[in-house]
């Protein structure tokens, strides 16, 4: 039989404990959301619900338009992420491949913008949005998040690591700059792009503060805001709150399960490239 060293066992035990600590709240949330009001409050707490019920979910969907929130979240996330990706790719290409006077200075200025705290941007963005007459629209949720200097910076560095000879080779093969970008650079950068896209989608999906600021009506709420409002509606009913939270979290977990491989390879590759 294969011998397993003590160190190995300890490692696995520690990892298992760590993993459990990470995952437990989510499991507890899901379990609680299936319990009745009485069981949820019972002492000592039960592990598996005696009578699993979807009651709480039905209540959640009835009291708050979660489907609408969900739709809004999906729209905002998809449009934001798509726009960010598109802008990031073009911008990274411009600052890595094209040559024009002042390129590097402009880029350093852009990078230095990352130093401005988010909270400060919120105020100016807010007044801009209001002046544009976009208050309480989905567009207001989208417009400020259609580009990212940080992602541009990461992608530019990746693009810079692609050898020049590929560019020249593509040019000699008859490709224009535009074709080179989409036929060669983007496919090569796919792992990084998937990572960037997922990080951005997560940030959009979870974005909370901004939506509270620029959205008033129920119709334009996204899930996090909706959930926040739902806490009032659910009151002290813990199991209902958990059902609402599950509705918000589950789609993200499913997305992660589907894209797990890309995320992991994307992150580790990005890491190796430094």
């Amino acid at each position, binding site marked *: 039989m294969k011998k397993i060293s003590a160190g190995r066992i300890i490692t696995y035990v520690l990892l298992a404990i760590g993993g459990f600590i990470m995952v437990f709240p989510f499991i507890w949330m899901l379990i609680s959301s299936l319990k009745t009001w009485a069981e949820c409050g019972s002492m000592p707490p039960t592990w598996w619900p005696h009578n699993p019920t979807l009651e709480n979910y039905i209540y959640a969907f009835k009291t708050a338009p979660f489907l609408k929130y969900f739709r809004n979240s999906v729209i905002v996330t998809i449009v934001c992420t798509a726009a960010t990706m598109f802008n990031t790719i073009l911008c990274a290409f411009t600052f890595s491949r094209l040559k024009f006077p002042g390129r590097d200075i402009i880029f350093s200025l852009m990078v230095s913008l990352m130093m401005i705290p988010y909270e400060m941007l919120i105020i100016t963005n807010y007044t801009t949005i209001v002046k544009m007459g976009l208050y309480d629209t989905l567009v207001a949720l989208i417009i400020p998040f259609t580009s990212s200097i940080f992602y541009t910076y990461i992608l530019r560095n990746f693009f810079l690591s692609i050898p020049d000879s590929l560019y*020249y080779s593509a*040019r*000699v*093969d*008859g490709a224009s700059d535009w074709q080179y970008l989409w036929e*060669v650079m983007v496919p090569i950068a796919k792992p990084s792009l998937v990572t960037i896209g997922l990080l951005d989608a997560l940030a959009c999906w979870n974005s909370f503060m901004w939506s509270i600021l620029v959205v008033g009506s129920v119709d334009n709420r996204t899930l996090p805001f909706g959930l926040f409002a739902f806490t009032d509606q659910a009151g002290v009913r813990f199991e209902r709150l958990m059902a609402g939270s599950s509705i918000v979290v589950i789609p993200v977990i499913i997305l992660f399960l589907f894209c797990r491989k890309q995320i992991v390879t994307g992150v580790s590759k990005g890491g190796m490239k430094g």
Partner: protein
Amino acid sequence: MKVTIKNLTKKFASRDKNGEPVIAVNNLTAEFESGKLIALLGPSGCGKSTMLNMLSGILPVTSGKIYFDDTDVTDLTPDKREVGLVFQNYALYPHMTVLQNICFPLKIKKVPKDERIARAKKIARMVHIDEYLNRLPKELSGGQQQRVAIARALVKNPKLLLLDEPLSNLDAKLRLEMREEIRRIQRESGVTTVFVTHDQEEATSISDYIVLMKLGVMQQFSATRDIYNNPANLFVADFIGNPTINQLHGEYTSSGFKPDGTDEIIPIKADVAEGTRTILAARAESVTFNKGENGISAKVNDMYSSGKDWLLNIDIGNNNLRGYCDADYELIPEEIIKVQFKDKGVFLFDEKSGERYC
């Protein structure tokens, strides 16, 4: 397609050690005949890649003109020149399979998919990589990658094929195989080809013509056979040929060449003033030995093998030289023997400028 290069110059903004701008290619004029294989030869840093990149359009020229047949292509971008280019590191697209790599230039040209694949497969067969069409470049050996790169360069039927040291990453045996392969492919396709190398043997074994460069300046442009038998200057004579040409330093006198460190004279006629410092250069096969009375005296040092042949190492005055001898030559170290020089393969150069006198 005929390629005409007129007064081609490329200056880089960077400075050399004297603070002068680097002139990577200096006022180069040449004409490459259609369907020939031309080797661009020279030591590292002499401007070969720069030259090639100007032909492909990757690098803009500083001054001068490039014509493909009668069309001035000097200001055309690479995608408009219809050239095929193989980089030193092959530059295959890492995310595409071999087939996709070869198809890429046709895809850009919007050739219909069926035709694209048919043409790619035909070329793949020609360069013997049709078994690997579905592999990624990283799953291929260096030699296979190189052939993919050549296939990709050839598939669009370029008017000019440019190869930048395509063999330098390969082991010695594969290198020999591949250069014959390149020669065969070039003959079969009949495409005018410029082949960059710093290996004189590679250049002479594969090419119809050789352009020999040094520090951006073309030293000689002639048929491959001539460059060995008829070098334009000392640099060319020294660069071409293995073993390296023998060089004897000395003085030109009315009766011939007097090597340093001896009073004997090697009879040679040239149009030079008496007393000029010169170098007599002699190919190893132009040096003959005898134990009789004819020729100039020399002291025997050693004898060694260079593969199938034997070389005898001798001193004439202060100069050391080597010549071919028979394998059964009876070696007596320190023995004084006589040396004669044939007419062919013996040249006289100016010691300072390297200019050829005869």
